[in-house]
């Protein structure tokens, strides 16, 4: 019985988390100051949270898109941050 209770709690917790996420998705918004940030600025601010800022010459245009997706899964970048940083690195 105790085991079933624990599993029930686990599923309830997960469902709760998902519900909260869905609610928050709809309410999240960035203000104008954040939205106006350039790719270069986001590159400088976010990459160095974990490692040195990468050189744009390190990978090709196509590879930067892939690296951007990879880094988004690692550092939980927002989609706009990823797109702007990748666009900057592709220049």
């Amino acid at each position, binding site marked *: 019985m105790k085991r079933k209770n624990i599993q029930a709690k686990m599923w309830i917790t997960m469902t709760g988390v998902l519900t909260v996420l869905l609610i928050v998705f709809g309410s999240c918004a960035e203000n104008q100051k954040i939205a106006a940030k350039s790719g270069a600025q986001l590159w400088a601010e976010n990459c160095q949270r974990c490692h040195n800022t990468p050189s744009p010459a390190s990978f090709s245009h196509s590879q930067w898109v892939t690296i951007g997706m990879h880094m*988004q899964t690692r550092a939980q970048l927002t989609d706009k941050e990823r797109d702007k940083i990748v666009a900057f690195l592709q220049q």
Partner: protein
Amino acid sequence: MKRFHNLIYAVLGLCGLLVTASSARAQQTAADSSVLDRLTTLEQQVADQKPGESHFMVAGLTTFGFVSNKTTFTAPGAAGQIMRTNSFGDADHYELSPMLLWRHSNNLLVEFEPSFDGSSLGVNWANVTYFAAPGLQIRGGYFVVPFGIYNKRLAAGWIDKLAGDPNGFDLPGTDFGIGLSGGLPLGDMKWSYDVSLTNGLQLLPDGELQNAGIVDNNKGKMISGRFSLLPFSNSCLEIGVSALHSNAGDAGSSFTTANVNMYGADINFVKSLDPILVNIKGQYNRIEVSRQTYPGQNDAPDYSFSNVSSAAFAQISLRPTGADDKFLKNIEVAYRYSSYNTPANSTWGANSHQNDFGVDYWLNWRTVLKCTYSLSHAVSTANADQGGTLGITNVNALYLQFSVEF
């Protein structure tokens, strides 16, 4: 006669013009041919880069070096025993991990990282991620369990400021399952989530934990998650909390009711205080296993203990990135204090702490030479009746390490 001479000069002039024109035309033809050749080459290069359905790339990292180690073990009432070793790397500080990334589309990414650690060939992760919506990534496969920041973000040799890892952060490691993650804006701030449902942990007969593997050891699953907040608009500070729950006992064993709860907190602060780049990181992990009775060894009676472990580290590194001198701006100094306490009266109980001092030289943004001096001190709290070894262990180690991301 004069007319005849004028005629000769006219004919010679005309021949000269014809020769010059012919020569110029030959040069132009050669130039055109060169341009055409270059154009053909460029067209081939463009064709090679043309986006198709397959976007495959190989990146990765390698780390190797030298470690000089002096271990002093002092048993109760006895003189210290000293052991010295010098070796080119070891399992914790040698790694070659090519990372294979395949972007199937702009919404689907496959990641695979095999790894050779000097003694075995393993897999760090192998998973597929679907970018379902802004702020929502869904992944499945074999991936780093979301808990804290060290394992997922900081452990790679070309990222870590010091040669070794802090003790006690191996769990929850990498596991098989599914997960959701994403980062979202919140006004001036930003927040992120990373949750997973995986096979979970397995409780061993001595009370230690390991990952159950691809075939689960019970019906229960492990739920784990990390939530973080970046309260400043420049993302210089990140504060995270993590939690985990897992059934850990083997089905049908005396550990059937065993479960594990883990709690964690982490902080990451990176800011340039001109001319110094200040980098502060820390994490605290606590593991609680429900009370169990463990089988005695060598005809000793069964025994029990409070199976609680904790690990923590705090690290600071400074790099004068704003310095004018090129050599100086590539130098980084780092210090880390870490502690790791395992359960008293288990066979593996100990209270330990470690100080790591490092000087790094960055050859470029992803290539580093590290020199780390490490001092660790561990006092055993083991249950000697069950085979645990009492005593004090001191380790002094000097690491020279080279690490590169490629």
